[in-house]
């Protein structure tokens, strides 16, 4: 194994890991505040990717400029979806399991609408920076004497990394330093107590749904920078990665999901380098099962307060 491959694996792990962290964080906001498991989360992300694709292809807009538009559009969609679906759900016998199924139905609808609109092909998002790649540094004699190896990163991935870091900082600031953010964390800790102190739980939940949808949409846009193509059928993979990340980080623990996301990204990318592909995919699920059995509160989780 040579060091160039390993360093590339590490870098890829950090870039993908930050995306997974964002997926996990938004999924966890939903899971914590609303006690629902969003099976359609991956489709929200894919829809974000198509948003960037449409903006780029038909309006010629740089996906980066469309970020705020995407955030606003997805926030409104999520806010509306909350009032359409969730208050009715709360009346069922088992809201968690029912939400799993309900959102599975929503995900089927989203996938087939996207296939209907964009057809079942993988769409390229032809957007490039100048220069396309950056040479970070050179490893001397990596492939034997006199043959240096260069560690190259696509510029788009570095941009994605920077945007991701900014979004994560903004989200953490929102959750810890603003009043609505604090209310959301309070609702994660104790949904009943929050209502006693006079917070309108429905409005707060609708905000949380909107926030999660906005984050998912933005993640989709950022994802087109990391992997420059969108597959309407690819949502399920993101959903499953999201599940792994939130279980690793602790269900309903948005900041734990950040660390878990980066960790999972590193594991995934490194095992892509070191193991055959199907084995690398299996690894994530095995970690998930192991964590649920041996440390159900998650690797970074506090004790679950319900």
């Amino acid at each position: 194994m040579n060091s160039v491959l390993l360093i590339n694996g590490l870098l890829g792990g950090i870039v993908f890991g930050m995306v997974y962290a964002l997926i996990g964080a938004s999924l966890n906001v939903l899971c914590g505040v609303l006690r629902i498991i969003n099976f359609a989360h991956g489709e929200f992300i894919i829809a974000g990717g198509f948003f960037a694709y449409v903006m780029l292809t038909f309006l010629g807009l740089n996906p980066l400029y469309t970020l705020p538009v995407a955030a606003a559009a997805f926030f409104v969609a999520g806010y509306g979806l909350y009032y359409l679906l969730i208050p009715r759900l709360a009346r069922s016998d088992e809201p968690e399991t029912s939400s799993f199924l309900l959102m599975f139905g929503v995900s089927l609808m989203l996938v087939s609408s996207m296939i209907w609109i964009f057809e079942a092909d993988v769409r390229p998002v032809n957007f490039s920076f100048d220069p396309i790649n950056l040479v970070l540094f050179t490893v001397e004699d990596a492939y034997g004497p006199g043959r240096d190896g260069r560690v190259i990163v696509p510029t788009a991935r570095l941009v994605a990394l920077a945007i991701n870091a900014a979004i994560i900082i903004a989200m953490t600031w929102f959750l810890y330093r603003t009043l609505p953010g604090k209310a959301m964390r309070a609702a994660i800790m104790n949904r009943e107590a929050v209502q006693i102190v006079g917070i309108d739980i429905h409005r707060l939940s609708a905000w949380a749904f909107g926030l999660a949808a906005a984050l998912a949409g933005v993640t989709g846009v950022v994802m087109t920078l990391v992997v420059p193509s969108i597959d309407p059928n690819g949502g399920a993979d993101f959903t499953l990665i999201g599940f792994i990340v939130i279980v690793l980080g602790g269900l309903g623990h948005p900041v734990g999901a950040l660390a878990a996301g980066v960790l999972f990204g590193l594991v995934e990318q490194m095992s892509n380098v070191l193991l055959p592909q199907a084995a690398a995919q299996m690894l994530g699920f095995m970690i998930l099962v192991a964590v649920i059995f041996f440390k159900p509160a998650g690797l970074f989780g506090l004790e679950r307060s319900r």
Partner: protein
Amino acid sequence: MARPRLGGPDAVRRLIWYGLVGLILVWCAAVPPAGGNLSLYFSLMMWVTLATGLNFIAGFAGYMPFGYVAFYGIGTYTTGIAVKVLGLSVYAAVPIAGGVGVLLALLFAPTLRLSGIYFAIVSLSLAIICQRLVSLLPEEITGGSLGINLGVITIREHGYYTMLLVLVLALLTASWLARSRLGKALKAIRDDPEAAEAMGVNVPRSRLFAWLLSALFAALTGGVQAWFTGALDPQTAFDVLITAKTVIYAMAGGLGTVLGPLIGTVVLVWVDELIWRSFPVLNNFLLGLIIAALILFVPRGIVGSLMQRYPRVRRYIM
């Protein structure tokens, strides 16, 4: 809920139920000689069996196995490998498929300690692990990602009648379970595990039994399906949609009732056929819409809602 009195209403209910099972038996058995649509009836019987099997663990015991397809998939692969690689007769392969399904369920039994959404997520992950594992195994055994092509093993009717046999077994097991002590123990666990335990119910053993029964019928169904269609591959054998459809059919009818999964499947498979014929593009969209609408508006399913609204119905159906 009051214990059903012996004689009286229970006898009426049983008469209606066994009459219905007999009718299904005669009707489905008459399809091949009458030149009916074998594939349509086969898939109908297959889904009723799966939904009834899922009901044992999901409806009676209250665990939602989102990776139910794992047992179905392992069943198809057992038949495939037994026939193609080991050269066994398919008549021996199907019972073996059931046995392998039960073994897999024993292996997964520790997951029953988890509850609610954790159980659902782990179950889903285990099904995905099974799928990846099957495609990782040597190609001489599982055929890799291309799967196994069995071709025509026997005349199609034999596979069809075996499915009918499995279906009738599943339906009879359901009505036996609902009336048995075990079934009542399971419902007690579903409604309140601590209270059930305090009343002397052996919680781990009861739910393990339901779990194994569920797995058995899924694996048998998978085993017969591989025989009937003659081909299998990891993508379709472990498709998450199979679990989803099974759950939806069972929920549409009413989880926890004996009649529910049967009614739900027959209604929805019929609707599915109509949708396919009229709107092939939007098939999955409408399926998703039906799921969402069911959960929001009839969470107890057709039979469950009927029982809730008209308690007298309980006298006639299980």
